[in-house]
């Protein structure tokens, strides 16, 4: 069929479905426009969450339905909207246009490109608000989502479909953990990469640009989508940003894909919602947050899911980020999100200042469901690590009171120091699981007891290179995820003894 014939056929199809029917419109009149909220009379048939359009071209969404008025929050500054302007319903609920073209792109919460590249073609409109899948459609978390960070993969493992909170003060590396996790999703030979969505809420444009640049540099942008709602955007867009990110994730979930979504950060999201609620004159509660602040985050995070095989088997793993003030995790929003999520990674400033990076506090960090998703290979080495770290923490506090220690205690303390040292890891340097297992195996089996602490980092790095060169079969085996056999352990021990001869 020629191009002309195709066009004519399309026109004919349009003609067959074309009906001349009277159009009924529901309109309203603007009464007030203050602080990004418009009160309009009329619009008697409008529904909650519906998009409305003003005669000035501005758009907004209905968030309050009163007896005589509706309150509309604007997507733009709305400076041109005046009293008496007409506003009409669009009949559409809040939704975002999603297609595969979004991969590698930066969009705003309305799905409009922000990276100066081509327009995104219309494909499927996904609703921003959706009821989370029910228990029948779900299955327990059973597949690991590897972060490439030793401390997390070994001690606080994350599974696909889990909600793991990253919490800590500003500047402690919360975003760095999320970015490392995204970077680690590349290089999966033969496997589909996990699609990563990074939702930036209320952040500085420069920070967002840095994240995008880093992802591009590390080759992780091709399977990532950035939903950007910087602090310069109206509070409305900041409020809908995580829901837009989740709607995009659900599009890929319907296709049976695995998705990782990072909400950076939900503290600012709560601030945006507080602002909207106050200008909408909703009653303020604790810390001036509205009464439904818990539901705001619970309905979002409940959409993280691991679907069973009958429903496509896809998953959405959520990594919400919360910023605390002075390490206070008992504040209002942190406690809310801690209770919603399946665990938290707690970053502490003391550890950060002491040079422990990532500054994860192993004692207060927990993963409630990820343990069942850990591979047998990792489980075999991580169990011992947890025990040793717990003993070390107890003894380290106790040893401060006395100067004389028995040899057994001194040995445990030395081992603990080495364990803490081996858990240190540079930024943007996620490791494959095989190398993580190798490092942890080294320390838990005492192979590093005779190495000075200051040389541990270089020992680890060079040993990885040595194994890659001389014993690649060990790494191939560890990648499978099975518990290492006697033969593999012997080969690992042999490799260590050979490496120690050449290591200076």
């Amino acid at each position, binding site marked *: 069929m020629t191009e002309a014939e195709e066009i004519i056929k*399309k026109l004919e199809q*349009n003609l067959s479905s074309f009906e001349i029917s009277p*159009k009924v419109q529901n309109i309203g009149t603007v009464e007030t426009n203050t602080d990004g909220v418009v009160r309009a009379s009329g619009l008697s048939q409008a529904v909650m969450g519906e998009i409305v359009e003003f005669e000035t071209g501005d758009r907004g969404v209905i968030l309050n339905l009163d007896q005589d008025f509706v309150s509309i929050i604007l997507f733009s500054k709305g400076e041109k909207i005046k009293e008496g302007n007409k506003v009409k319903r669009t009949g559409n609920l809040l939704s975002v246009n999603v297609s595969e073209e979004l991969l590698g792109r930066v969009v705003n919460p309305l799905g409009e490109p922000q990276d100066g590249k081509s327009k995104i073609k219309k494909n499927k409109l996904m609703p921003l608000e959706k009821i989370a899948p029910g228990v029948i459609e779900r299955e327990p978390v059973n597949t690991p989502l590897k972060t490439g960070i030793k401390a997390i993969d070994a001690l606080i493992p994350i599974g696909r479909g889990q909600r793991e909170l990253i919490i800590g003060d500003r500047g402690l590396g919360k975003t760095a953990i999320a970015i490392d996790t995204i970077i680690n999703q590349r290089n999966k030979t033969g496997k589909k990469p996990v699609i990563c969505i990074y939702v930036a809420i209320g952040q500085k444009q420069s920070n967002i640009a840095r994240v995008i640049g880093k992802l591009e540099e590390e080759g992780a942008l091709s399977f990532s989508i950035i939903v950007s709602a910087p602090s310069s955007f109206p509070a409305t867009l900041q409020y809908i940003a995580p829901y837009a990110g989740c709607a995009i994730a659900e599009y890929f979930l319907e296709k049976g894909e695995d998705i990782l979504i990072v909400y950076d950060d939900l503290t600012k999201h709560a601030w945006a919602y507080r602002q909207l609620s106050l200008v909408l004159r909703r009653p303020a509660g604790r810390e001036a947050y509205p009464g439904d602040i818990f539901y705001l985050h619970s309905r979002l995070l409940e959409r993280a899911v691991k679907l069973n095989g009958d429903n496509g088997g896809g998953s959405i793993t959520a990594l919400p980020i919360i910023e605390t003030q002075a390490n206070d995790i008992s504040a209002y929003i942190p406690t809310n999100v801690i209770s919603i999520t399946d665990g938290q990674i707690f970053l502490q400033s003391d550890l950060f200042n002491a040079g422990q990076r990532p500054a994860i506090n192993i004692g207060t960090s927990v993963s409630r469901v990820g343990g069942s998703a850990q591979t047998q290979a990792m489980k075999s080495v991580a169990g011992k690590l947890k025990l040793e770290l717990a003993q070390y923490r107890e003894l380290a506090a106790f040893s401060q009171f006395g100067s004389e220690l028995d040899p057994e205690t001194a040995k445990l303390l030395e081992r603990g120091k080495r364990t803490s040292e081996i858990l240190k890891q540079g930024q943007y340097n996620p490791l494959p699981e095989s190398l993580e297992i190798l490092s942890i195996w080294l320390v838990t089996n005492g192979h590093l007891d005779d190495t000075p602490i200051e040389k541990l980092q270089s020992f680890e790095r060079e040993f990885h290179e040595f194994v890659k060169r001389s014993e690649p079969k060990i790494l191939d085996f560890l990648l499978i995820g099975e518990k290492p056999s006697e033969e593999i352990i012997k080969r690992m021990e042999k490799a260590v003894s050979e490496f120690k001869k050449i290591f200076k």
Partner: protein
Amino acid sequence: MNRKQIEKLVCLSYTKGRLDEVKVQKISRILSKRLLKEYIKFLKRYEQKNKLIIVISQSDPKEIIKIRKHYEKIFPKKNIVFQEDKTLIGGIKIIDNDKIYEFSLKGIFDELINNQTL
């Protein structure tokens, strides 16, 4: 005075479906500035609710009588007002408070433009 009482005052301002000036003057004298403001607002809204605007493309007196009779049957309690708008090209547009019924040629053309897929 609460909202319901003001609404009641607005209803009392009408005699046989028409706004009674004497009643309005009497009511306005007993109200404070704030309440008078509210009263005017409610009065405007009441008027808007009870008004049916019919927009036509050409004002032909015979046609107007015909249309008025027709719509008086459909909206017996409404005060029908006619407006002329040549941009409609043909047909009529009815504005009933916050609802617009578009039966004009312009409306059809607008719909065609909005629904074009090519």
